[in-house]
């Protein structure tokens, strides 16, 4: 088969999606940093095109794209597979990371207004995060997922302490150790599964999975591990200091996409791998923790003195929403499809709006020299576009109409109403209220006239427009129709479609 | 013939074990690091030598000469590295003892860190 034909089909592109971002690393290692920076952004752009091509291929063919590494079929070899949901995540991640790359670029011509150029390490870690995320969304082998998660953690942790301050290094170490604790619990689960079934391929295991004691323990360990890495409520100790300490571009991508990988895997475990009896049993517990996350973390966000910490706690709270989806999606009824679409839409609109909010907060901090919320009054006149981006992002978090957050909230609400899960509906509404609290607290302060005129450093305008573009995409999600989207359901239930003996 | 070899092996291995035990007791009982170095290097090396010597005939009988040569090579390597390393630890312990003022609590009880 000639190379050209190979690349045309979506199956071939899966591998390209994983390895393409890594090509930026040698350039960054060897070339001077200005050229390397541009090359990395070009690679990010190409990767977005590849992700779009994969999504297009999956959409057109109506079936999941699959390819096998080295031609070896599971159970011996490792398979990559892109169903509707993973293609959706690929495109979302590629778009957010491209925007982050553009945001972090040095203003052509002179070093960046305010902060100096991002260190070369940032770009290498960005490329590694991108490749690791793509692999997490595509890999069908549990051990490959383990190595991908580790690659993701090792690339994300140094991003937190790029500026090298004491508190940031402390936060990075705490993040690394807790993520490693989670990963090893996950690996213990994987080992038990291999002991039971002799294979690590999700689809083959799902075929043979029965509710045996070993499988129950394996699922429990794997779920706990992913909860630790997703910073779900009682385990969110590392998220606020890490995501608020990182430089703006890094905290944008950490909160928007890195935190979503373990959640994606939890959705895959509980909706693909686990038998439905177990899923229905465990889902209320996951939703309970999600509800606690929404309430407690939103309240704590309201009490934060600094803007970045407020947004970081908001991330911890919004993650709770994604766990509310499990009992609704696990119930076998037509409405669980709507809940599932709502959850996916919330995941995507949160990614874009949170990235926009962190970038806006970074620009505000750069302009004012600090990010104390009390000192924010009047910033609306200094960096109006950033505040507008922050406001639009906040709109999506609050779930108000023009934004994607609203459509997701309505989908989850109607599914909860139909399935009689009243407490989930109540928590969703309370979450919107509390989100309104902390977003409006900042926006109203920023719109007020300052006591004494603000002295502010100039901020590169095109970086403000990057943040606004992300916020507008989050608003764009508001025009998704209020019905279960069939694209997300391509390739479900998961199967290798006869390609495996 | 094999009986003689077996007896030979048992006697030598027992002697080797004896030396190891002496070395370990020395490690636990002796007060300061320099003394402990003696116990470790001398007793354990001889113990290992006897052990290897005892096992060589068994190896020759079982798997031909290569195994025996490997064991002797290992013994030589241990001789080399333990000699050099004990020299270094001696330097460090000596310097630490010199610079340590009498008031400092005797930290020699549980091993010496390479003094900065």
């Amino acid at each position, binding site marked *: 088969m000639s190379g050209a034909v190979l690349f045309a089909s979506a199956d071939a592109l899966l591998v390209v999606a994983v390895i393409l971002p890594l090509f930026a690393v040698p350039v960054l290692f060897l070339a001077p940093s200005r050229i390397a920076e541009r090359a990395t952004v070009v690679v990010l752009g190409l990767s977005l095109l590849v992700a779009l091509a994969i999504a297009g291929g999956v959409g057109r063919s109506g079936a999941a794209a699959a390819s096998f590494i080295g031609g070896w079929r599971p159970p011996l070899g490792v398979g990559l597979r892109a169903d509707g949901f993973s293609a959706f995540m690929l495109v979302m991640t590629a778009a957010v990371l491209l925007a982050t790359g553009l945001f972090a670029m040095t203003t052509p011509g002179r070093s960046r207004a305010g902060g100096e150029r991002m260190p070369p390490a940032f770009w290498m870690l960005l490329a590694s995060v991108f490749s690791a995320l793509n692999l997490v969304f595509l890999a069908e082998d549990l051990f490959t997922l383990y190595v991908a998660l580790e690659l993701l953690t090792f690339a994300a942790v140094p991003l937190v302490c790029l500026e090298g301050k004491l508190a940031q290094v402390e936060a990075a170490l705490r993040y690394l150790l807790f993520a490693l604790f989670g990963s090893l619990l996950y690996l*213990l689960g994987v080992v038990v599964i291999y002991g039971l079934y002799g294979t690590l391929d999700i689809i083959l295991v799902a075929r043979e999975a029965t509710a045996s004691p070993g499988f129950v323990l394996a699922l429990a360990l794997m779920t706990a591990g992913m909860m630790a890495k997703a910073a779900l409520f009682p385990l969110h100790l590392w998220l606020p200091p890490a995501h608020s300490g990182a430089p703006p571009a890094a905290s944008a991508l950490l909160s928007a996409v890195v935190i979503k990988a373990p959640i994606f895997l939890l959705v895959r475990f509980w909706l693909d791998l686990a038998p439905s009896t177990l899923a229905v049993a465990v889902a209320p517990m996951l939703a309970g923790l999600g509800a606690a996350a929404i309430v407690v973390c939103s309240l704590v966000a309201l009490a934060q003195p600094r803007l970045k910490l407020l947004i970081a706690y908001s991330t911890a709270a919004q993650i709770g929403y994604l766990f509310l989806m499990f009992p609704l999606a696990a119930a076998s009824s037509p409405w669980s499809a709507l809940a599932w679409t709502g959850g996916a839409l919330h995941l995507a609109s949160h990614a874009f709006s949170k990235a926009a909010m962190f970038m806006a907060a970074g620009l505000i901090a750069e302009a004012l020299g600090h990010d104390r919320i009390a000192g924010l009054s009047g910033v609306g006149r200094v960096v109006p576009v950033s505040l507008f981006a922050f406001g639009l992002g906040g709109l999506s978090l609050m779930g108000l109409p023009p934004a994607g957050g609203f459509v997701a909230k309505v989908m989850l609400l109607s599914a909860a109403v139909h399935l009689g899960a009243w407490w989930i509906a109540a928590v969703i509404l309370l979450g919107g209220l509390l989100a309104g609290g902390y977003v409006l607290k900042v926006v109203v302060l920023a719109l007020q006239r300052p006591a004494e005129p603000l002295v502010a450093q100039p901020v590169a305008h095109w970086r403000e427009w990057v943040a606004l573009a992300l916020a507008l995409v989050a608003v764009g999600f508001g025009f998704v129709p209020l019905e279960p989207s069939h694209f997300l359901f391509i390739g479900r239930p998961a199967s290798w479609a006869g390609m495996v003996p | 013939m094999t009986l003689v070899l077996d007896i030979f092996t048992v006697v030598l291995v027992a002697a080797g074990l004896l030396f190891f035990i002496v070395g370990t007791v020395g490690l636990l009982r002796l007060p300061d690091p320099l003394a402990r170095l003696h116990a470790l290097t001398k007793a354990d090396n001889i113990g290992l030598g006897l052990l290897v010597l005892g096992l060589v005939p068994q190896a020759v009988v079982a798997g031909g000469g290569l195994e025996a040569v490997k064991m002797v090579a290992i013994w030589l390597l241990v001789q080399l590295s333990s000699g050099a390393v004990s020299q270094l630890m001696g330097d460090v312990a000596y310097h630490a003892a010199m610079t340590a003022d009498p008031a400092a609590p005797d930290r020699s009880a549980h091993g010496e860190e390479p003094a900065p």
Partner: protein
Amino acid sequence: MSAPVLFGLLGAALSAVGVYGLMVGRDALARILAFNLLGGGVFLVFGAVARRGAGAGFAADPVPQALVITGIVVAFSATALAVALLKRLAALRARPGAAPAKVAGAQAEGTKGRVQPGGDA
């Protein structure tokens, strides 16, 4: 009670000790060591599974062995990164004028400013 089962139980025991160490460890080095113990335990269980899977001419199933080798190298890079962070933290703390060690994260004005001794990882 064959060898693989014995070592499987040992792996379980090592994992339990590693988990205990991670819970009880009060400074970063203790936690890194406990993490490595837990890793050793997990790989040992994998080794026991491999040994049970012997057959077709191999004394142990080669696939888990390969995975354990990959796991050990990944665990090493994790330890190297953690130790580098740890040394950098110690260097920053030792430097005069380093910020007073406070628990990582916000001391919201809501709670009295009770500074805990060095909130290490």
